């Protein structure tokens, strides 16, 4: 990468709109992806995720707005922008008569820099795709093997930016673990990852930030940690003696279930006020269950469908 690059953004999307006739696939999208972070790009099918990715790769031309990859304009300076990207498409469209090695060599040959075969070997090892499998034709590959091949071709050039469309689709749980470990390594080496995913638990686990698209519009862009703070918690309180009534709860506290010796509450925000209230009551036990990030995100999805 050019040392003259001073911006903090690996990807900068500035007011992109993409229309197909009357249909607006992406509407005035603004998004910054910082260098070295992993951003989870979420949205229902047809929300505009793939359209955005394809604009970054100059496969699609935006109706208006512009996008930059490490300060390179994705359309006007597309060759330089794409030389910094490793891309995994949602579906690997390769000819089935080719062997895995032929695909990797062919795609490596299209890049500007030669591929480090040692690094490719490491990737193969981690994804358990040995060389003897690479000598087989793709028609003999399972879905999972094709996905592994797709990941290797995206990563083999060790690019500064990885754009991954549904990267774990088709991978078994063990391979998903390997992939997460690979992502962690990639991040350690300062690479940026922009990945779309449907698997919310995966996003919650590996991403630093999430951006959520709904009907082509960005409805959420936040650090995962911030979202976790927003996530409501479920608090179960068990009393040593029956409680005839309950006091007024502070704001952000919602009763889920109430019984003489048991309360179940949903708490948004700090727990301090509730704990203060409970000190005056005959509490036997308290259980605090942190709701999953997925539950927060699903709220955004649902709002879109209602």
């Amino acid at each position, binding site marked *: 990468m050019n040392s003259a690059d001073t911006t903090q953004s690996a990807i900068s999307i500035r007011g992109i709109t993409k229309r197909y006739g009357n249909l607006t696939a992406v509407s005035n999208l603004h998004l910054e992806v910082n260098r070295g972070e992993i951003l989870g790009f979420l949205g229902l099918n047809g929300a505009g995720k793939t359209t955005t990715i394809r604009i970054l*790769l100059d496969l*699609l031309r935006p109706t208006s707005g512009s996008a930059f990859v490490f300060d390179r304009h994705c359309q006007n300076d597309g060759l330089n922008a794409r030389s910094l990207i490793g891309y995994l498409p949602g579906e690997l*469209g390769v*000819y089935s008569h080719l062997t895995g090695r032929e695909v990797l060599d062919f795609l490596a*040959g299209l890049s500007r820099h030669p591929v480090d075969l040692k690094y490719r070997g490491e990737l193969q090892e981690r994804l358990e795709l040995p060389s003897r499998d690479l000598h087989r034709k793709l028609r003999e590959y399972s879905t999972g093997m094709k996905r592994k091949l797709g990941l290797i071709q995206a990563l083999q050039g060790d690019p500064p930016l990885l754009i991954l469309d549904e990267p774990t689709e088709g991978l078994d749980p063990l391979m998903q673990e390997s992939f997460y470990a690979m992502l962690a390594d990639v991040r350690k080496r300062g690479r940026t990852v922009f990945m779309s995913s449907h698997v919310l638990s995966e996003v919650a686990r590996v991403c630093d930030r999430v951006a959520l698209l709904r009907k082509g519009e960005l409805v959420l862009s936040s650090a995962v940690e911030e979202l976790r703070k927003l996530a409501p918690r479920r608090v179960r309180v068990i009393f040593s003696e029956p409680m005839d009534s309950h006091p007024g709860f502070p704001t952000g506290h919602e009763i889920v279930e109430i019984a003489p010796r048991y309360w179940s509450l949903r708490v948004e925000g700090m727990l301090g006020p509730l704990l203060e209230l409970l000190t005056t009551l005959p509490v036997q036990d308290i259980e605090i269950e942190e709701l999953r990030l997925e539950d927060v995100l699903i709220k955004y999805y649902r709002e879109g469908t209602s």
Partner: protein
Amino acid sequence: MRGPLTLLAHSFKRARTLVLVMGALLAIFQVFLIVVAKSLQKSNAFAQIGALIPPFMREMLGPSLTSFLSFDGLVCVGYFHLAVMGSLVALSIALSTAPTSEIETGFMDLILARPLARHWIITRSILVLGVCTLALLAMMMGGTWAGLQMLAPKDVAWPASGLILSLAINLGLLMLCWGGVAMAIGSASRRRSVAGALAGLLALATFLMDYVARAWPPAESVAWLSPFRYYSPFELLMGSPLPARNLIVLAGIASTGFALAYILFSKRDISQ
């Protein structure tokens, strides 16, 4: 240049088997025609066949009939037989619509996600089309030469090498012309089947237009629109020199098609 050369090598490898098989079949066809011509020559059947042709056909074909009903004339049929022309035009269309197929399968996503300029996709296809055309014609001429060397009777005149070369050049340009048309259509299409069918139907329609015009004078007024009008094997058989006008028109259509393909492909969205 590393990327374009990799792409070119891949595309040649992909077209190799098809071109070799087709070239071999066409070369065998040339040899087969020589076998037939030798047999007819031996049994002195050319004159008998000529006598069997109805007068209206004689009138339609004119003096070219004489040149056609001879050993060297029949040997040359391999360069304008309907099956040969049809298969060569079909191959041109298939090779020229390869980018559309690559878009359809998603392979283009992987190619263009690399630092490779879009114009290389069209340049690559033109080079593949050009080299494959040359290879096919070379194999056909090789078949003719080998067949004549091995099978031609000693007492008959062979077709002049200049005549065979003229037929091959004219046929090659006809292939490039349809390649250009198909590439332009393919560059604006989402489906290879649609692009191929459109180009194929256009080829068929213009072939029929030219064919009808040869038998029915009123159709002459529109026959100039058909690229097949600019491939005149019978005139060449009768000894006319290769008309530069025909070559210019065919090359012009091919170039226009390629130029349109460059423009359309550079502006289009790459989506399946």
